């Protein structure tokens, strides 16, 4: 797997198989079953899989073996940029480019600069947070083969899904489908790049 493919997989954008299969989608009745199934899927050696639920399921990151999110680093970098950039801007504009003497106040000093430095810290950090969240998630992603599944429209309502990508080294149509059924899947579908069929 190339580095690009690996990064995309971390966003949940998986490579399809040669025959046009994208992955196996299994529906589970409730978050407890989903968490259990995700643990078992990882145990069985699958790596390129994702779970879909209408709300974040507690403990799922550990079950899927995902580490801590990296958004925080970008937030910190953004905050630092905003704070120092704000100070630099006020110093250059007020003391270098066009100094104006007002009541003999210093052209630049830290005290009156604090509020604007603070506000810019927050704004740039917030923009960096959202920007990095979208970038790390590979969003916006208008096209997704999973949308071909009728049932999948309930992943944002009250249904719980596991999707094992066809690109996973261990993926096998029959075996993976049987494996998911053994885990208690209510319904298993094979997703192609352009359609979804019952498996």
């Amino acid at each position, binding site marked *: 797997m190339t580095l690009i493919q690996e990064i995309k997989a971390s966003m*949940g954008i998986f490579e399809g198989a040669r025959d046009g299969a994208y992955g196996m989608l299994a*529906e589970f*009745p*409730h*978050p*407890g*079953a*989903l*968490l*259990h*199934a995700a643990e078992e899927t990882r145990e069985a050696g699958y790596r390129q899989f*994702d*779970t*879909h639920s*209408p*709300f*974040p*399921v*507690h*403990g*799922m*990151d550990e079950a*899927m073996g995902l580490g801590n*999110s990296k*958004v*925080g680093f970008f*937030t910190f970098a953004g*905050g630092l940029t905003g704070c120092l950039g704000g100070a630099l*801007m006020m110093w250059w*504009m007020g003391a270098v*480019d066009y100094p*104006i003497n007002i009541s003999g106040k210093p052209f630049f000093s830290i005290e*009156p*600069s604090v*509020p*604007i430095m603070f*506000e*810019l810290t*927050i*704004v740039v*950090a*917030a*923009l960096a*947070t*959202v920007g990095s*969240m*979208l970038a790390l998630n590979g*969003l916006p*992603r208008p096209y*997704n083969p999973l949308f071909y599944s009728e*049932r*999948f429209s*309930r992943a*944002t*309502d*009250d249904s719980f899904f596991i999707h094992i990508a066809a690109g996973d080294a261990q993926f096998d149509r029959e075996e993976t489908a049987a494996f998911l059924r053994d*885990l208690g899947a*209510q*319904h298993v579908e094979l997703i192609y790049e352009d359609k979804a069929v*019952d498996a």
Partner: protein
Amino acid sequence: MDNRTEHSEGPNGHDNFHERPRLVKGGLTFNDITELVSYHAERKTPKAWFAAFAVASSGAVLLLAMLAYQVYNGVGVWGNNQPVAWGWPIVNFVFWVGIGHAGTLISAILFLFRQQWRTSINRAAEAMTIFAVICALIFPTFHVGRVWAIYWTLPIPNQMEMWPQFKSPLLWDVFAVSSYFLVSLIFWYVGMVPDLATFRDRAKGFFRKRILGFLSLGWTGANRHWRNYEKAYLLLAGLATPLVLSVHSVVSFDFAVSILPGWHTTIFPPYFVAGAIFSGFAMVVTLLVITRKIYSLENLITIDHLEKMNVIILVTGTIVGFAYITEFFMAWYSGLEYEQYAFLNRAFGPYAWAYWIMMTCNLVTPQLFWFKKLRRSIPVMFALSIFVNIGMWFERFVITITSLHRDFLPSSWGYYTPTMVDVLTFVGTFGLFFTLFLLFLRFIPIVAMAEVKTALPESDPHHYEGDGQAAATSDRDAPYIKPSQGYQSYRGGRQGTPLSDDDEDSSAA
């Protein structure tokens, strides 16, 4: 939910956490929540909505007309005149900014404190924040007189090769309020993405599908996404918390950094922040008492939610009242006769009527919330929240006008009165506010569905361990408030769709 997995050998899954009273009443399922919230955006627009929208948008048009009139004729059409250079426009600005604060408090600060009851009300409260800040920004923008030069307040290169004066508290305010608007908008939208995806997946029409598809960014509820999303949401809450406290502090610097008796006090930042939260919660109660009734959300926005907000109103109202008294003490203790005069003039001078309206509405009437019965009574809380809104407007009026109208030179003393344009502009901002709020109620998921679902015990994966059943049904007998007739027939029509029937078939497969 009869299809349970085999891994249920562990001890009974529900612990003390689940013994707590339910936040969502009536034993709603995940799907019930989706349906209850989506219904309002998906059904045919009710006639009453059009009627309300007609009234509100007339107000917005009135605002536009008044602003056009003001731009054409100049600031002289308002009642401001020396020494009262800050009349109603600044009073209204502070009033509207303050209202916004409750939304961020509910969405960010209560999130950090893990107050799950916020999930039912945060979307509407954040919407209120954004609309209130829009209304607020109108006033200073037009108060500068030459609205076409307002971009001079931003560090944008211009033909004069000049930069803004960063040492001025007024400029701090530009940065504080616009940062606040931007961050609130981002926070609101990020929180809404999963719910927009829910709407997208239910959408029928061609355009509705595509517009929602665009706005929901291709969200599929993937756990790889939730992981970064939850972290980002937590960080945004962490950023919005100091921001909301800073915004009204900076607004108070507009006053406190000057050397005017009555304004030049160090108590202003905390006192303004408490007042902002106080007025904001009152506005949330006013809006939600009506909304939950009309939109049959009584099971999601329960009387317990309203009671909690009333407790916050009681606490912050008392803090504000305490600050009023402290100001008097400080004036006396300072030994400064100008300071002392400014405060005596406030309470017993020509504007005493405004002062005592403020005292009554902000300190006295909220004390009724000490009684549980009154705290949980819809008519009482509605009336009191209106009183608080009035009282907090008068607080800003008292601070601004009474400190200015008698300056150091008695020859320039006078009595400030607003003009008709002042009054109609202020009325117009209410029109704009309600126009935006009605559009929100019509098109946007008014309750954060994904977040409310996490407040159900069923969302905890360990809920299904052990017998599970007991915890699932323990609160089923909680009072379920029947929604409106329209919703019931809508719900009835949807039952038996192929999607919900398939569950039984597939378990056999």
